[in-house]
């Protein structure tokens, strides 16, 4: 029988009355598909908080999209009891989002822990995002426990990757635990090791209460559920609480822990992890990184590390059916309740009609929002090519912040600044040459290169974010047969020689196709876009020139020749009904055409022109 906590010992780890030395807070750092959710599920089972018959595969990933994509967007915390000898412990497993866009959320999850499992697929080795999160964990002084997962796989190479992990964190390869989330092998050893190596939380039980919000989730029935880690003092059910960044106060309607189903408690004490429900309806009022204190006798100084979420990538979202605009607006209003980082404002495009300019943390965030809008709200959407935020200084000293290429100012520009990222690429050493070539072609500046092991290399580059959001990831994957992985984090800005390239149809600019590119790449971009549009725009009754231009200077041109034949030659008696139905269908199709000046452009052309090179983030 597993060392589950006996009923008599359980009272020693009752919620709100557990001494910090019996608490262990930890998270799991892992790449998508390396088996984090499976291992987590297995822990729930081994510790007895979920009965095998209730086990849903990947209990912790709740949203459909997450389950389908195998990624965790929203984290949660689960309290699990575990005994070592006669001593019961409360383990809090804090789930972390697994993607680059959510680096800040990851950092807050890490800040709520004292230790981390570094979980790596024994057949694949560490990936760039895992490495980035590992560095974050090391910065936060977390105890790192290396774990190789999927040792049951025939392709597993535990010796090789144990060596790699040991090199990274400076330990002995023998210290790497080996588990199989699938069979359960080694899971109990992981729990024992957590208790042995992860430090107990420290805090002042007598000080005013301070708890850090590491997640905030909107629930249709309960409003916002806020997940916190108590650092000092105590939160009790009857308290009124204050969010320190906004100084807003709320009644505590419920306080408790998830195990894994939510269970109200008598409060939360030092080192404990749980949830609060205050009745607020918008996650913006309960922000990740913020400090919760009691309204009466509250703390005066917030815990460090809070940051406002800042959108880094913008794109326009337009309903394909213009009459869906109100539906899109309501849908965004609903998504916003659960997504503090999503920003949007109405936008009108000559070509695409009414829509919204939306700001996202990054590409995955963009895709998730778009997918949820389409799936949960049944919307058909066009999204314009993603753009970053440019700071433009004019000769006369005026400043513009440009999030939409069509708003890039005409006239005398003194300076344009663009956001930069520090990118880490992990690649098999065979592909180092091609990856370096790619980074250079994307205006990257090499910062360094390290061999993690004999055949795996870590490359560090400073790159313009705009290049990453274009098609960097796809190219990286295709050049390395899918083996390379990428992570990046914001790294200030740089001035660059950037210009706006417009695309004109029959002399009329199409706002949705405007793009800001480096001057040296303007020509090739222009040629590429007009070439693509030539294939997508149907022939009209007149010749249609397609041009790319910087200001009034044309840099590329293609022509869609006038259509000469638009008639079905045959029309016997039996063809008449069919012909009439075809006519009705064509008229329906025409309604889905957008008029750009006098040119009819099918929606499909917009979608294809905007999406072919649109980035796809790691969907694996």
């Amino acid at each position, binding site marked *: 029988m597993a060392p589950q906590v006996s009923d008599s010992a359980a009272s020693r780890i009752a919620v709100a009355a557990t001494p910090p030395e019996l608490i262990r807070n930890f998270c799991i750092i892992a790449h998508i598909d390396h088996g984090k959710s499976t291992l987590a599920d297995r822990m729930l089972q081994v510790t007895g908080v979920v009965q095998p018959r209730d086990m849903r595969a990947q209990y912790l990933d709740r949203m459909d999209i997450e389950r389908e994509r195998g990624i965790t967007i929203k984290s949660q915390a689960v309290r699990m009891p575990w005994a070592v000898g006669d001593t019961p412990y409360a383990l809090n497993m804090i789930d972390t989002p697994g993607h680059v866009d959510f680096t800040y959320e990851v950092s807050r999850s890490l800040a709520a822990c004292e230790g981390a499992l570094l979980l790596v697929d024994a057949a694949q080795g560490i990936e760039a995002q895992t490495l980035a999160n590992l560095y974050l964990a090391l910065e936060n002084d977390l105890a790192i426990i290396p774990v190789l997962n999927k040792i049951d796989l025939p392709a597993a190479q535990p010796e090789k990757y144990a060596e790699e992990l040991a090199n990274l964190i400076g330990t002995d390869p023998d210290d790497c635990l080996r588990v199989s989330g699938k069979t359960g092998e080694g899971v109990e050893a992981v729990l024992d090791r957590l208790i042995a190596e992860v430090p107990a939380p420290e805090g002042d039980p007598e000080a005013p209460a301070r708890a850090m919000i590491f997640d905030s989730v909107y629930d249709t029935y309960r409003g916002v559920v806020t997940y916190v880690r108590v650092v000092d003092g105590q939160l009790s059910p009857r308290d009124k609480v204050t969010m320190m960044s906004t100084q807003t106060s709320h009644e505590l309607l419920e306080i408790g822990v998830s195990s894994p189903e939510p269970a109200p408690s008598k409060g939360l004490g030092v080192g404990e992890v749980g949830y609060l429900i205050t009745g607020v309806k918008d996650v913006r009022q309960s922000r990740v990184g913020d400090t919760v204190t009691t309204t009466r006798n509250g703390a005066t100084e917030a815990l460090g590390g809070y940051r406002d979420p800042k959108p880094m990538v913008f794109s326009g979202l337009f309903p394909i059916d213009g009459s869906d605009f109100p539906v899109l607006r309501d849908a965004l209003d609903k998504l916003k309740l659960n997504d503090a980082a999503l920003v949007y404002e109405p936008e009108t495009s000559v070509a695409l009609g009414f829509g919204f300019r939306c700001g996202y943390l990054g590409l995955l965030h963009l895709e998730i929002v778009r997918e949820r809008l389409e799936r949960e709200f049944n919307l058909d959407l066009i999204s314009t090519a993603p753009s970053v935020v440019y700071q433009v200084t004019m000769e006369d000293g005026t400043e513009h912040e440009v999030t939409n290429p069509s708003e890039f100012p005409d006239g005398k520009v003194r300076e344009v600044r663009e956001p930069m990222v520090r990118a880490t690429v992990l690649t098999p050493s065979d592909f180092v040459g091609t990856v370096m070539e790619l980074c250079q072609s994307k205006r990257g500046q090499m910062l360094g290169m390290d061999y993690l092991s004999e055949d795996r290399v870590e490359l560090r580059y400073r790159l313009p974010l705009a290049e990453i959001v274009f098609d960097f990831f796809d190219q990286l994957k295709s050049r390395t047969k899918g083996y390379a992985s990428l992570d990046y984090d914001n790294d200030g800005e740089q001035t660059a020689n950037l210009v706006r390239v417009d695309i004109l149809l029959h002399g009329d600019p199409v706002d949705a196709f405007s793009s800001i590119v480096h001057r040296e790449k303007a020509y090739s971009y222009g040629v590429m876009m007009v070439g693509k549009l030539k294939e997508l725009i149907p022939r009209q009754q007149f010749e249609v020139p397609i041009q790319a231009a910087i200001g009034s200077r044309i840099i590329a041109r293609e022509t869609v020749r006038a259509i000469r034949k638009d*008639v079905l*030659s045959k029309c016997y008696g039996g063809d008449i009904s069919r012909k*009439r139905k075809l*006519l009705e269908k064509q008229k329906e199709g025409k309604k889905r055409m957008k008029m750009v000046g006098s040119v009819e452009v099918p929606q499909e052309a917009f979608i294809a022109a905007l999406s072919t090179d649109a980035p796809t983030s790691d969907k694996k």
Partner: protein
Amino acid sequence: MPAQPDGETPPADGSLPPQVAGGAADRSLSLYVHVPYCRTRCGYCDFNTYTVTELGPGASRSDYRATVAAELDLSLGVMGRAQLEPRAVSTIFFGGGTPTMLDAQELAGVLGDIRERFELDSAAEVTTEANPDTLSPAYVRALADAGFTRVSLGMQSAVPHVLRTLDRTHEAERIPEVVQWIKDAGLDVSLDLIYGTPGESLTDWHTSVEAALACRPDHISAYSLIVEPGTRMGVQVRRGELPMPDEDDLADKYELAEALLASAGFGWYEVSNWAIDEKHRCEHNLAYWRNADWWGYGPGAHSHIGGVRFWNAKHPRAWSDRLRAGRSPAVGREVLDDTTREIERLLLGARIHRGLLLDSLPESSAGLIREFQDSGLLDPAEADAGFWTPTLQGRLLADHMVRRLTDFVI
């Protein structure tokens, strides 16, 4: 043949709604007879046709005439019950398939069966389609004796490699001789051509049109090859074994045909049809395009009576089984409302020389009519005289013109 259109299920006895009788006296009546047999199926053909002549009781070639006779009786009953006054038939057309796969006596017999039941207009046009290699001088004479007035001969091309691609088995050299037999029998003759066959050059097409003209027919139709999905050619194109016909190439060939035919004295009267003079136009096809009443007999045949379109079961067995059981072979129909009838009037009339009277069009379309003249799609002199007559460029863009024109109706 593509699937039949969607429609409602007609009554089992084929009865028509009473409104079909309205205005019937002003509409002519035409008959179509579908003969579903062919010696071989051509790779491009999507018509309702069968190479197996033993299709079972009622459907096989030997039973065909009797089954059509049953359908003739049924149609008389339906028209009578709908209070449609008997009208003299103005045109009859035998199409297929290959009507001349029937013996001359059988084909003549079907026409005889019609004449027993319907009065024919004294100047009635009676056409049959024919494959060049099914005809003989005796066959043609038998047609003339039975009352046929016209043969529409499937020449398709005069170029051997084009005929091969089309799976046509006849020899190009045979056409002038066959045309002469038809003329000698005193029948009118149309040559039917296809352009745009994969591999056909502009010169090949030039050769074919010249060859057709050299036979001195009184009527020529030229249809661009349409690659239909589900045909063997459609599959070959999809697999990339044959190139898809190029629209610009088709436009070139259409313009070439117009130039050659016009200089030989032929005038177009519908986008794909030319006649040496007005009285040699195909009145039967014009009846379709003018929304006359016409009843189609045979498997898969369509009919139009007073704003009701209906169509028969496609397969010969299904068609004959219904008739043998005393039921109507019609399996679907559409009862057209006034708007739909107006759309059909426009979409059919727009393809015809003087096909619409401008003062019959919605007043709000006046600007469009001017625009069409300005952009060279409508003949301005004709328009001044009150007629819708598309120019050569307009004929090539007729579907575009129809889409614009019908914007004023729907």
